[in-house]
């Protein structure tokens, strides 16, 4: 049995980490989980909590209840996180839906609290859609159904993702004895969150859904409504496995204690992102027929730091459906990352359904399930679908042919005093991302005031200069730019003209080959990166405008023989040949 409220000190992985010297930014430490949230409640948040009793009263009255059931503290088996001062009825509030009450709480938190914990509320539209995806994966009939097993949200916040599931379950259980339905709920639904105030609100809004059911229980047999959410660590191993895990986990980098690093070593690579940990723990918590549905950034499908997470997910529960949330759907006001609703299933499936959600849901494609640590190739648009399928079947890549990419070392604002407009004896020419526009290396006039860098540090001669030919690729393209891949060649001659060495700025990737057998010459590689087909492949690897060195290295390529023939091709002949290589012949 899981106790209603966990003793924080007994939670695994919550060793006290020495207090950091500077205030934590978004890269919060996991020890924050244990912060008593009450101490940082803003007056707005207290205002929201204070209005809850009267909101409850309104809900209970409407359900036809009276007496003690109108008092939330008596009707619900959960303690409020702070003493509640009685407030007068607020007619604005009585009309709020359960989702709106939860949203009001998240909005009332201070901006710093929200960003430090990576907390963000779940729009009702996405909550409903996520539940629809779960139903599809479990192949539940379109009619209302009772829950087939435990539904768990390990980062439940104010309960938004659990509401659609609870509503459906209660509707479907109408014919059952109401007191039994209520009694069985804790076995079917569990929310966990670190914030005691959010947990209490989740308990209140979930319990409000149960009021009509409670009203049907004969007066003498009524029990306080069960609390379905509890304060705890959503990453802790669960006491029982879940059929369904839904989550909108916190985003943002975290600092882990050594013990936790060990625990998550199999899914970590470099820094830890909170949402990745939640996804790993989420699939681990599933039972043999379980389904995980998560609202997460898409970076886990391609980033280097998520490589281990990808293979862990592939092994435990493969991604069977992904819905990209389009910008114009307007569900998120402030999140800049590309977001998706991803479904993972324990049962074996062959394909991943890809959809996009704008004003309506559109099917894009269905591709073979990808399970490896390599970036997953997922088309964002159906005109990319065929190319993506061909690319994901390829075994060779830039890196398998010996090409490696690195990011330009110069971060200009760290070295601003060393940047000059004129050349000098110990100054090297700086290549800026803008110099690559148009695919030919040139000198962008806007950067002329910072054209040369003085090599002042002893290490500069080693670290900051590039003295061999390379293919330079922009790291970030603007969303309005038509191409993701913008590359230009730094050839021997150009290098000589620039003084035999250059310094590459941070927004440029440097692509070089270390292999003896180049397969493709530097010139041909530059031309290849300029083709339309390769640009489409890149778009299927990452939905963001950024092109990381890792993603560049991972671009799938056809076999050595095919690629070698591209050396001799240019222009439309090359376009045709590359397009043909990434074309499926329909078998």
């Amino acid at each position: 049995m899981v106790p209603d409220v966990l003793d924080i000190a007994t939670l695994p992985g919550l060793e006290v980490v020495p207090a950091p010297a500077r205030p934590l930014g978004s890269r919060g430490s996991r020890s924050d989980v244990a912060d008593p949230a009450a101490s940082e409640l803003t007056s707005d948040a207290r205002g929201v909590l204070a209005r809850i009793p009267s909101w409850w009263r309104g809900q209970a009255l409407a359900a036809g209840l009276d007496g003690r059931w109108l008092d939330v503290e008596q009707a619900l088996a959960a303690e409020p996180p702070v003493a509640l001062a009685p407030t007068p009825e607020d007619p604005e509030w009585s009309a709020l839906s359960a989702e709106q009450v939860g949203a009001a709480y998240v909005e009332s938190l201070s901006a710093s609290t929200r960003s430090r914990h990576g907390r963000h509320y779940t729009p009702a539209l996405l909550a409903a859609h996520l539940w629809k995806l779960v139903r599809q994966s479990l192949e539940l009939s379109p009619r209302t159904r009772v829950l087939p097993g435990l539904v768990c949200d390990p980062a439940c916040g104010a309960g938004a993702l659990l509401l659609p599931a609870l509503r459906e379950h209660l509707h479907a259980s109408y014919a059952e004895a109401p007191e039994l339905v209520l009694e069985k709920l804790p076995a079917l639904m569990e929310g966990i969150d670190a914030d005691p105030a959010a947990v209490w609100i989740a308990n209140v809004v979930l319990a409000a859904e149960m009021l009509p059911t409670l009203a049907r229980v004969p007066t003498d047999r009524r029990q306080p409504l069960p609390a379905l959410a509890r304060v705890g660590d959503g990453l802790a191993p669960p006491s029982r496995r879940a059929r369904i895990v839904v989550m909108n986990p916190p985003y943002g980098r975290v600092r882990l204690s050594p013990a936790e690093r060990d625990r998550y070593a199999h899914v970590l690579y470099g820094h830890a992102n909170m949402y990745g940990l939640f996804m790993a723990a989420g699939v681990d918590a599933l039972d043999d027929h379980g389904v995980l549905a998560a609202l997460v950034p898409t970076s886990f499908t391609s980033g280097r730091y998520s490589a281990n997470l990808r293979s862990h997910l592939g092994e435990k529960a493969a991604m069977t459906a992904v819905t990209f949330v389009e910008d114009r759907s307007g569900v998120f006001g402030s999140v800049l990352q590309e977001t998706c609703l991803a479904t993972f299933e324990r049962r074996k499936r062959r394909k991943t359904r890809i959809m996009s959600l704008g004003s309506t849901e559109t099917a894009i494609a269905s591709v073979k399930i990808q399970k490896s640590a390599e970036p997953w190739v997922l088309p964002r648009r159906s005109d990319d679908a065929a190319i993506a399928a061909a690319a994901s079947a390829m075994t060779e890549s830039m890196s398998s042919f010996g090409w490696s990419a690195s990011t330009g070392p110069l971060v200009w604002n760290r070295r601003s005093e060393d940047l000059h407009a004129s050349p000098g004896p110990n100054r090297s020419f700086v290549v800026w991302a803008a110099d690559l526009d148009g695919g030919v290396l040139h000198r962008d006039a806007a950067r002329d005031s910072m054209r040369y860098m003085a090599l002042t540090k002893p290490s500069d001669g080693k670290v900051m200069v590039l003295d061999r030919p390379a293919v330079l690729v922009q790291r970030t393209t603007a969303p309005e730019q038509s191409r993701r891949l913008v590359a230009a060649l730094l050839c021997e001659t150009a290098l000589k003209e620039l003084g035999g060495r250059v310094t590459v700025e941070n927004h440029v990737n440097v692509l070089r080959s270390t292999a003896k057998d180049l397969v493709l010459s530097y010139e041909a590689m530059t031309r290849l990166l300029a083709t339309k087909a390769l640009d489409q492949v890149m778009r299927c690897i990452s939905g963001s405008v950024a092109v990381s060195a890792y993603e560049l290295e991972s671009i799938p390529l056809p076999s050595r023989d095919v690629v070698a023939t591209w050396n001799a091709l240019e222009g439309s002949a090359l376009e045709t040949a590359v397009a043909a290589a990434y074309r499926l012949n329909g078998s």
Partner: protein
Amino acid sequence: MRKPISRSEAARRLLIIFPRAAFDAVLSSPLAGTAVAALVHVEAVCGKDAPADAVHWARPSTVMWTSDEVFIRMDDDSRRSYRDAASRGSKQVDELHQAWGVPYQPVYKENSRETLRDETFRGWREHGALQMRPGIPTSSSAPRWALSEEFADLFDPDLEEEAFRKAAEQWRETHMDPGARLKAAFALDAETAKHAVIVDLPDGTKRTLENSNSSLIIKGVVESWAPARMGKPVVLAISEPGVKVHMGDERMLQILKIKIDVNNVLPDVLMADIGADPVQFWIVEAVATDGPVSAERKKALLAWAARQNIKADRCSFLTAFLSRNADAARRRLKDLASGTWAWYADEPGHELAWYSLTPSADDL
């Protein structure tokens, strides 16, 4: 007429346009190949700006009823006679085969129609390969399907392999581009709006319903009957034939503490009279073909209402017909449940009541 294409060649080309590795198999199945061949055969092809009534629209059964003999006869006259026969009924198709002097052996069983309509056609339509004629009621069996012209062009048998592959790629690029799809969707919306039934709700907003008789009845109920019958009418939900449910004012639903479960039994219209005290709910069935508030239906609706937190003694029922002369009205008048009302859209000033003179508990 367009040059016909064989079923196997159509299926082969579909596999190249919608490779199995990237798209759902229903888009390129043998059945899908037959569908392309059949639609080209009867020239059910819709140009970009073609007026809807100039197109030869087809039905899923146009595909189901084809036979080997139909595909063998490639002259224009035979193709036209099959088109005419298929637009009328399976009996006519059978007769046509007899006239040709061959036994009628359709390629597919009648029940494959659902797969074709619900999966293949839907998928094609999402990708812009198939057009649906706007303004046809969902429940109507009138022909409404045609291949998009550019898509049909990919099945020109004279197209050489290399040229075909190029054209297929080109088509994918131009038709599956989200921008192009958005544009097409807007154009379709505009076309649909021309045929739609627009209902003015009491709160001043408008709802667009599909063109059908039941939409016309719903329009009458909301615009004429409700203002006359209720103190302050509010529309809570309208459900259209098919799957669409229009939820009313969400704020009002929240204030009334009603939680509508859209997955199960739903009346055509749910209204509330918030001018009455206590608030009275009206559950309305709009009957264009069938489905009045019969004793059995009333019971089901009351159970449904209870689940939405609406108490039985607050519910009133109305069956709305198009006219006293309408076939459905004449057939179903005898089925009205006791304690319910009936209303006719063409005589909006009158209402019919059916109640027991000596009420019993059942008449609540």
